[in-house]
């Protein structure tokens, strides 16, 4: 075959494991050989990594040129049975058609993902582009396999509980004696911030043996976007199914985005936005305090980036104001707890005299130490509220 000027085929025979051509680019082969010779490599030299018995290397040992150190590098290239390569155009056709048909089969799933994105121009453009796909998918009934698969996996809409059912359940008593036999049932709930904070609280609380905690967090969720995740409904369901005595809540990290309300997009931070958000917080509080339950609404800690920090501060004020209006809700401020002595954001805070990393590199989330710091603060509030000592053992008043 004449040399057609191409490297990965054409005039060159592709690597097929024959000794005269390792298939390695010449630079590597020469480099390896020179390296081996320069350092006086002996058999034992690279015992550490020499392909051992049973290793399924893509390049057979026989493929290495004389003088090369065996197993010096993983093979760059290797194919089993020789086969014809495809043309770039055919591969493009396969990809375009493959992606398009996959898109039709999964149009609704893709639409769900796009709908979960923050409200804005890009989301609208993506949804507009998807519209013909979802329509075509429906017309051709290509959405059926996905529906069948989801039904098979039990992913269909499960029946929800109503707020009336929460009331009908046995009322939790507060205050009541907390004992090992009758621990406090604590439901911890929130967004990605609650992932570390919640598990810290779960660990610290369970260590007291007086609390049975359940953590539930959903990344990227909050109260701004019930179309993405309907937290109020979820809270009702959990109150019926888990029947907690108290709930610790941490929302807000994803809520600094526009809210869709009655067909309008309310700009984050605007007066209308604040009113709607306040109503949603109030509703969540009313749900969670149903039947006399206790709620510990945890404010977000100080954040690094100025704009984001301002939005979080605005939401913290809303939580605090709403908590004051709802009996049974205690607002736990963590802003200053996670700030340095000057009141500014700091990755490292002093813990026992030593600087300890408290925040994740994104300037938002917490490290385990940060989660523990916040959780201990919240646990102290809970223990005080239920009359258990700070040490975790029941206070004399609480022991029956």
């Amino acid at each position, binding site marked *: 075959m004449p040399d057609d000027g191409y490297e990965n085929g054409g005039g060159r025979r592709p690597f097929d494991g024959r000794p005269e051509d390792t298939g390695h680019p010449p630079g590597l082969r020469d480099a390896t050989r020179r390296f081996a010779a320069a350092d006086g490599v002996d058999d034992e030299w690279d015992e550490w990594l020499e392909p051992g018995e049973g290793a399924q290397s893509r390049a057979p040992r026989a493929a290495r040129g004389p003088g090369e150190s065996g197993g010096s590098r993983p093979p760059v290239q290797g194919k089993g049975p020789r086969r014809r390569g495809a043309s770039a155009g055919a591969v493009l056709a396969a990809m375009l058609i493959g992606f398009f*048909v996959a898109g039709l089969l999964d149009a609704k799933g893709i639409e769900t993902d796009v709908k979960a994105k923050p409200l804005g121009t890009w989301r609208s453009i993506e949804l507009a582009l998807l519209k013909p796909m979802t329509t075509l998918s429906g017309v051709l009934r290509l959405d059926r396999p996905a529906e069948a698969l989801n039904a098979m996996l039990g992913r269909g809409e499960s029946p929800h509980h109503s707020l009336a059912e929460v009331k009908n359940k046995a009322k939790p008593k507060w205050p009541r004696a907390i004992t090992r036999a009758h621990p406090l049932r604590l439901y911890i709930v929130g967004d990605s911030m609650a992932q570390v904070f919640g598990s810290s609280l779960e660990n610290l609380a369970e260590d007291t043996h007086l609390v049975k905690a359940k953590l539930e967090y959903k990344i990227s969720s909050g109260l701004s976007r019930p179309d993405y995740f309907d937290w109020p409904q979820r809270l009702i369901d959990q109150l019926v199914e888990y029947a907690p005595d108290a709930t610790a809540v941490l929302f807000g990290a994803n809520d600094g985005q526009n809210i869709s309300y009655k067909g309008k997009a309310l700009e984050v931070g605007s007066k209308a936005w604040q009113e709607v958000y306040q109503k949603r917080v109030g509703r969540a509080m009313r749900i969670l305090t149903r039947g006399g339950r206790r709620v510990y609404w945890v404010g977000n800690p100080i954040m690094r980036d100025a704009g984001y920090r301002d939005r979080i501060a605005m939401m913290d004020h809303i939580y605090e104001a709403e908590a004051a209006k709802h009996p049974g809700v205690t607002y736990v401020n963590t802003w200053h707890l996670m700030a340095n002595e000057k009141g500014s954001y700091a990755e490292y805070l002093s813990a026992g005299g030593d600087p300890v990393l408290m925040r994740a590199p994104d300037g938002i989330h917490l490290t385990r130490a940060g989660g523990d710091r916040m959780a201990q603060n919240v646990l102290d509030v809970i223990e005080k509220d239920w009359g258990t000592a700070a040490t975790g053992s029941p206070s004399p008043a609480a022991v029956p």
Partner: protein
Amino acid sequence: MIFPTITFAVFFLVVYVANWLLMPRLRLWKWLIIGASYVFYGWWDWWFVLVLVVATLLNQLVGTQIARARGRRGGAGVARNWLIVGVVVNLGALGCFKYFDFFAVSLDDVLSSLGLGAPLPLLQIVLPVGISFLVFRMLSYVIDIYRGELDPAPALDFAVYTAFFPYLLAGPIARAGEFLPQLTMPRDPHRVDAGRAFTLILGGLAKKILIADYLATNLVNGVFASPQSYSSWETLWGICAYSVQIYCDFSAYSDIAIGVSLLLGFELPENFNAPYTARSIQDFWRRWHITLSSWLRDYLYIPLGGNRKGRGRTYVNLILTFLLGGLWHGAGWPFVFWGGMHGVGLALERARSEARRARGLPEPGATAGARVLQRLAVFAFVSVAWVFFRSDSIGAAFSLLWRLVAGLGSIGSAVTWPVVGLVVLGIAIQYIPRRFMERLEAVLAGIGWAGQAAVLAIALFLIDTLGAQGAAEFLYFKF
């Protein structure tokens, strides 16, 4: 930008078309790949692109200066000085981004215990994604030039090598010597290895989305975050599930990177070879993150003296190499402990092997039963080591391991049939014979574009529908 997203699919289609259209005009093509790679990397933060540009300019300067000095009589000293500059600048950048706070806090702890508290400023610098992979590539480039194994590449080629987007974030660590020669001639548009590429990409997506992400969400994250809430049985499965998760996550990235490169006409080195079938720790490191272990061997273990300076020194070199390998993964003592475990494990294994040889005993593993036991032992060792790798602190890792005995009693409900099935599947796929996979690749290559389109459509649909909503980042991005 991450692989399993529609954004990447659109980006890749555009790059793919431009790649083959511009391929005959190599110079223009190189600019295209550089631009595409910068967009890919800058998708996180445009500031990261600056890191790439600076790395390219600096290392090209160092590389050419070393080569120039080497070419002059008596220039060895100058070449050596330039090498020192290259190593110091690269490691210095890595140190600043990754380790400054770790060392500052550790030093502060030591000084405080001596009553000499001298708080150092702590700067939590945003870590450019995959910076250590970049530093590995840069170091291999300047060191290979110094060793005379490589000639400096033309600046444009080197910029492509620095930024090539498929391996940019999490490897494989392609060495300059194996990548740069592929840039010298256009790739053949009639020989795209679609069979292998599609097998690797679809297999990688399935491993990542269906196995790794499911296990992470449904057991691993919970067990590692709140060990107290889980029983011994759940903890045991949580540990095994993490071993499977990290394999299915990291090897998936490598597979997809290799597959994506193949579609563009380029070969990347293999990075994983059925690691949990290993019968010794040494064998494990021939199969796990191969491009890292061979990098550590060539640029750390061998310069330290390897096994040429006596038995005692060999053990020290092994342990030291792995301690540093552990530290490479992250600025934290759990990583150092993890590396130390592997280093000590390798040294002990070697000592045992030498002792057996001295007594004229054969290598163990003669019977099938013994081989099964060896594999189980290696998997158990590696899994316990992963506990340290995954934990926030050494104390947290021991707490988790303690749950294996302290959580007896109730079995708990977290170990579901899908979790068990996926853990078993994640290990079982490593026992699939290679010739079977090669056959599969050949079949996929042979069915033509229409057949490939059908396979792509069905596989992508199944992976996306069966997987959870949203794409999770790959674990190795942070390294």
